[in-house]
């Protein structure tokens, strides 16, 4: 067994425990309809991973333009692919919650707006990659676009929700810096955050290796 296998086994057990705890061990939060609050254990971590991937892909893009090392482009591409999957997951889980709590799947709540925005960025990023055949140019243009998108995100995420009124529950660490969760819930929530981050790291690693192999296969004809 390699170190990777051991880590993978641990991740599997950890996620199994998180899923069990999310449904059976943690209590349902007061002030939410029925069991609906349990979605927080999955919705927030996916949104967190979506944001994290966006950050990683920004850093990898900057590094690519600085070093011109194709491995950074592989990383930027891998984390963007991961980002788009988790963005869709966060959108779907959020939409289900919105349906139960607020009665409709979509309200253009500021946070829903921000995540749509993230989805648009990712879609544009992949549309751009698809439209450039030359590999070096593709990597460079995609990196430039990722950086441009990244610098506009703070405006949407931080400024727009402050201007509009929001239905969205307070973020976990809210503006007052206070934690508004039952202690059991909080423990499961943190464990789930850690678990999803581990899951994302594993998927990211896989995606990087696959992409590197794919490119190596293409390189061999040169």
């Amino acid at each position, binding site marked *: 067994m390699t170190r990777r296998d051991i880590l993978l086994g641990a991740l599997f057990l950890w996620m199994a425990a998180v899923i069990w705890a999310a449904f059976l061990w943690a209590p349902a939060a007061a002030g939410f309809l029925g069991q609906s609050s349990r979605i927080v254990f999955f919705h927030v971590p996916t949104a967190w991973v979506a944001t994290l991937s966006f950050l990683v892909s920004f850093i990898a893009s900057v590094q690519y333009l600085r070093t011109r090392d194709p491995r950074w482009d592989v990383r930027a591409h891998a984390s963007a692919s991961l980002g788009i999957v988790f963005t869709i997951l966060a959108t779907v889980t959020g939409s289900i919650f919105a349906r139960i709590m607020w009665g409709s799947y979509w309200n253009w709540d500021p946070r829903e707006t921000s995540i749509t925005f993230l989805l648009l960025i990712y879609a544009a990023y992949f549309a751009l990659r698809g*439209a450039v055949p030359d590999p070096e140019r593709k990597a460079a243009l995609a990196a430039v*676009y990722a950086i441009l998108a990244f610098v506009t995100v703070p405006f949407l995420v931080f400024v727009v929700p402050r201007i509009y009124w929001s239905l969205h529950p307070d973020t976990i660490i809210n503006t007052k810096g206070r934690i508004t969760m039952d202690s059991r819930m909080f423990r499961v929530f943190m464990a789930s955050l850690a678990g999803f981050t581990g899951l994302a790291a594993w998927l990211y690693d896989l995606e990087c290796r696959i992409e590197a192999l794919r490119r190596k296969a293409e390189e061999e004809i040169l």
Partner: protein
Amino acid sequence: MWRFLGETMAVFAKDMRCEFRTRVAFNSLALFAVTTLAAVSYTIGPYGIAEADRPYLLGALLWIVVFFAAMAGLDRSFVKEEETHTAPLLRLAARPLVVWGGKLLFNTVTLALLMAILVPLYVVLMGLSVRTPGWFILVLAAGCLALAVTTTIVAAIVARAMSRGALFAVLSVPLLLPLLVFLIQGTRAAIEGRVPDVLAALRAVVSLGGVMTVASAFLFPVVWHD
């Protein structure tokens, strides 16, 4: 510095001269603007919106018309250089920043010309009354600059890819979305005469535009040479 400005003006003057001889960008921008304006004015007109909603909806509609017109023509400056294969010569002869500056100037002037014609028409056709016209014009001017900066760098990217027309809108929308939100808020506040809100929106537009300008200036050479 003066040399830099002189070379930038050379690119700008060349683009203007070519544009006045063919008018591809001007015509498509103007046609798009006039068509959308006619559609909006015909379907909504001055009385189609309840009094309370007017400032907000009219502000939003105005920017939507401007945005669509921008999408129709502001990619020409770069795409034309690639399509007619004049870009390599420009790449060999000019400094990258000079090209960026010239194209930015060209896009700004094109958009400003368009808005100078479009906005008065819009105000008349939609029966729009603005409480603080000075601030209204300032918001429009800041919006014109910020839109030009963003579309210029996106046009530069798109020109280096395939299926440029569709890609221009796809890549522009996410980058322009926050900007349009701020501009619509600022325009509404200017129509309603709420100066502090105009200032808040202007600050957001200027900082977003500023960040975009700095990022573009750094990234343009990469886009241009790869």
